[in-house]
């Protein structure tokens, strides 16, 4: 994981004695340093893609890195919409990338009856997934 760390710096000096911490991202274990944000810890592990756009599924990662753009939002210990760039990692933190959602009301090419209840929606969605 130190491949991407800047251990030596001509002005800022050496990066030494960092405390390691284990966390998971989408079920896989990673090691970061104490004081890392989720964004920096994941990038240090070579991970750039943090979520996909909810509707289109296009990949997204860090953009502004200081909390303005919300592109890096992930789910942390079950809480959605957490900015990876502003949230420091904790031991055993469980992080999930942002996923695509279904949009049952978007107009589609084939005329189908829109689901009226959540149960109907679930059934259609299941069929789509299985089909």
């Amino acid at each position, binding site marked *: 994981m130190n491949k991407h760390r800047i251990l030596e710096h001509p002005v800022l000096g050496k990066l030494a004695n960092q405390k390691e911490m284990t966390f998971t991202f989408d079920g896989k274990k990673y090691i970061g340093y104490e004081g890392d944000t989720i964004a920096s810890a994941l990038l240090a592990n070579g991970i750039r893609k943090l979520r996909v756009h909810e509707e289109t599924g296009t990949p997204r990662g860090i953009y502004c890195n200081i909390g303005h753009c919300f592109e890096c939002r992930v789910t942390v210990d079950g809480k*959605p919409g957490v900015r990876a760039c502003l949230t420091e990692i904790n031991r055993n933190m469980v992080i999930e990338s942002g996923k695509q959602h*279904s949009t049952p*009301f978007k107009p589609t090419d084939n005329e189908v009856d*829109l689901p*009226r209840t*959540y149960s109907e929606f679930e059934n259609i969605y299941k069929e789509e997934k299985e089909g």
Partner: protein
Amino acid sequence: MTNKNHAEVAIIGGGIVGCAIAYYVSKAGIDCMLIEKGDLASGTSSRCDGNISIVDKDPGFDSLMSLASQELTAELEKDLNLPFEYRSLGSILVCDNDAEMEVAKQWVNIQNQAGLKFKLLDRTDIRQESPYFADDIPGGLECETDSLINPYLFCYSLIDKAKQYGLKLHTRAEVKLVSKKGDFLIETTKGNFTAKKIVNAAGVWSPFIGKMLDIEIPIKPRKGHIMVGGRQKPIIMRNVMEFGYLMNKFQRERIADSKTLKHGVALVLEPTESQNFLIGSSRQFVGFDARIDYDVVQTMARRALRFFPKLDDFNMIRTYTGFRPWTEDHLPIISEVEEVPGFYIAAGHEGDGISLATITGKLIEEMITEKETTISIEPLRYDRFNKNAVTM
């Protein structure tokens, strides 16, 4: 050749009511212009939700009017070119407690007797509607014909079509003075216009237009707040309101905490096409103070959580307020004004502007072309308030 600055009919106000009137009047082949002080749909019509509902209307004239509007809107879905996120899935009301459930049962019976498609929902039905509902909700009811639109897209769509029928659109033209010498003279920040007839569709601002012709219009702004949620996974398919909203509206006794009652807060949750959620709402008389009152917002959030406790992690991305044009008897004024022949009012829809816009547009067109009206306009007359003066 038509004169750009003159029309047979001038509509003042480019909200949903003005746009619907513009559509029907121009479609009838009448030379017509619309004058709006800002952009189209820049007032109440972009600061509200999008229900076209009967579910909360008293059976009789109120629900008849909404039903007519629903049918017209369904036709427009076919006639207009620009999509406006129309969905006809019905809507539901949920009850907070057993007392409300009792009234709800009666409500469904009355509506069914009136021939409307209402159905009582029990605990199991509520689970089917959304797994995010609180476990202790005793039930609710459904109105099958209710529909949803995106109000500002609907305005754009109506105007797009109206322009094809010849509508002259003047936006960013604030009306400063209206006078009548034969024709009406309308002086605006974008020049002067003349018209044979005027329709005042300026919503909460219609009293200001009325005053220019010495006409008192008993409409007051009633402020409502709405929160917008960020894109979320689907949680419910159709619009939900709480039954208490109805008790509130018709001054029946409602059990809720003091802030909920004080701010006129009642749950509204509307899933939108883009998978955002509109969460409301409140009702307050505070003049034209559009500022967001966070105490109200907090109360709305608590109210939403009472019915949807599992949504506590859902992120809200903005809040807005809009002014609903309130009248004392909760019915709009859709009427010619006898004192000033050729002057019509189509305003005062309070929270039903979206529901009643199309029927309002149709009625005004019928009045102007002197046809028989689709529904009776007697209860909507301007002079109904004269008998029973309202203090402003």
